């Protein structure tokens, strides 16, 4: 997997208020944004809220976008910051209110799922288990590298940190995952 891209003319049209051009941008990047948001928040309702916030922010900031930088990097950055903010905001709210509805975490059931779909659901469940063992910042690193397939240099750009800091964050995140698997005795697929 690699960074998505879109034609500059579509971005320009969307910046001028063309909703169908903006829908094109949404179709191209929504999966990427939602995956990152879900990876960070580990809650579907939060991921939906973050995705909505991200695209409204993108629409309102399109006129400020400078074509010198990568559009997908810009979206990744907005998505990452928004997802972390939504995570912290909603976690704080849930901790100070009534017991949180776990339904937000459940993977939507696919009726009459094929073998392939069941395998994908299991893989998603395994990834969820692993990501929940990490801090949101480490989740971001893992999602960008492992699921989105970004190179270290691209991650450095998205996270606005030096490459060596990317390396050390990945190191800590993976060490934490290895330690978690060892502690929990997780062997399925690992």
């Amino acid at each position, binding site marked *: 997997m690699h960074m998505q891209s879109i034609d500059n003319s579509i971005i320009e049209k969307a910046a001028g*208020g063309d909703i169908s051009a903006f829908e094109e941008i*949404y179709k191209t990047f929504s*999966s990427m944004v939602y995956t990152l948001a879900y990876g960070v928040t580990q809650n579907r309702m939060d991921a939906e809220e973050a995705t909505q916030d991200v695209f409204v922010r993108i629409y309102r900031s399109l006129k400020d976008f400078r074509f010198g930088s990568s559009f997908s990097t810009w979206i990744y950055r907005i998505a990452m910051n928004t997802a972390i903010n939504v995570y912290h905001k909603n976690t704080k709210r849930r901790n100070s209110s009534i017991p949180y509805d776990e339904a937000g975490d459940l993977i939507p059931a696919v009726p009459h799922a094929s073998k392939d779909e069941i*395998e994908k659901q299991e*893989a998603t469940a395994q*990834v969820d288990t692993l990501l929940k063992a990490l801090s949101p910042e480490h989740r971001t690193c893992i999602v960008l590298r*492992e699921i989105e397939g970004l190179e270290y240099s691209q991650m450095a750009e998205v996270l606005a940190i030096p490459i060596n800091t990317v390396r050390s964050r990945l190191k800590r995140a*993976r060490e934490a995952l290895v330690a978690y698997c060892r502690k929990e005795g997780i062997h399925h697929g*690992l």
Partner: protein
Amino acid sequence: MDCKKASSIIVTDYIDENMKGLDLDELEAHIRSCPNCRTLAERVARLRTTFKAAPRQEAPASVWKKIRDEITIDPVSVRYRPGLLDRIRERLALLKPAVIITCAAILLICVVTVIRFIPVFGSLSAGSSQDELITIASMNGSSEESQYDLGTGAEQYFL
């Protein structure tokens, strides 16, 4: 190569295939000879496989509907928000006729003032010769005399 350094590289550049040449050869030689580092490399490789097997998530269709509703509420104000310089420029453009009229009025007042007062001051300064001062003084003097002339026949009677 010691295990501390090797494990640090295994969980980053080695597993992400960012290594080549002698460094890679040296690390692989260490992994072959060290059971702990070999186990670590295998575990991290399995982690990668697990993440790779997971598909990207798709946002529900309701998300786009909510986004579209939000951005189409006030598309005009959302579409273009002028910056500070733009706003100053716009206001100046609106003020342009007023500024022109004010400047014209000030200029007119100046011209009128100059036409009205400059010749008087000009003559005073240029004609401050002794003769002219005497003439003015004598004019003033005659007016004083006429002021005290009661215009009655009594004065002439005593004279």
